[in-house]
């Protein structure tokens, strides 16, 4: 433990191998999708999507709504499992963790459903 930088990522106690693995998989996905997201929003046609009309026009390409929903699902999953990991580091009681889990799942589902709704609204405004 003295050479912390040599250690590698492993599931925390209470994290579960699947959550840990999916956090890594979504992490890889995010490196790609978030990079595209940042480039488009800041560099497309010089200074990115600066107006409502720019955003609607961008969403007319059918790949874009699908890509943005994938980005949203990945980033919401990654951030909420990450938050759960931080809470696990505080050594919560089991019953408290179950409440946290229920809240995080609810937040995640609401965020993704809301995102799909918003993306469909924007795409249909063309």
């Amino acid at each position, binding site marked *: 433990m003295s050479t912390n930088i040599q250690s590698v990522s492993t599931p925390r106690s209470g994290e579960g191998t699947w959550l840990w693995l999916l956090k890594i998989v979504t992490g890889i996905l995010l490196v790609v999708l978030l990079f595209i997201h940042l480039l488009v929003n800041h560099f497309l046609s010089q200074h990115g999507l600066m107006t409502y009309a720019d955003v609607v026009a961008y969403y007319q390409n059918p790949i874009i709504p699908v890509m943005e929903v994938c980005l949203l699902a990945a980033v919401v999953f990654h951030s909420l499992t990450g*938050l759960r990991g931080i809470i696990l580091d*505080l050594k919560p009681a089991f019953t408290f963790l179950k409440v946290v889990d229920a809240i995080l799942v609810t937040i995640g589902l609401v965020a993704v459903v809301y995102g799909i709704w918003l993306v469909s609204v924007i795409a249909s405004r063309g």
Partner: protein
Amino acid sequence: MDTQNNKPSAGKFWTWFNPVGRDAGGWAFILNRITALGLTFYLFLHLVILGQLAKGPQGYDSFIKLMSSPFWIAGELLVVAAAFLHGLNGIRIILTTFGVSVTRQKQLFYGLMVIALIAILIFGFHMFSA
């Protein structure tokens, strides 16, 4: 000291962010955790604010105008910086998880942070030159 600061423990939340006596691994940890919390906060703020798009051009365009002051652009650059720092540090974590470059993590970390710094500077110059 590092490993003590980073150890999971109830009620030791603030020691995670104590900058005293950290090596490269300790700084990687602190940087990843701060940017994680910042980006999570921004993500949900971002989702709520983008709801303006549903209200049509008036709501959204006036909001964007409001956000074009140097103060808010600096705030936005902070988000971009957090994304690059977290994402590139994440590449180190992914590589080492699969056994790549485990014994050269320090060099990998410094190299990735230099790339992050260059990316942040490019975005910064571009965002403030509008």
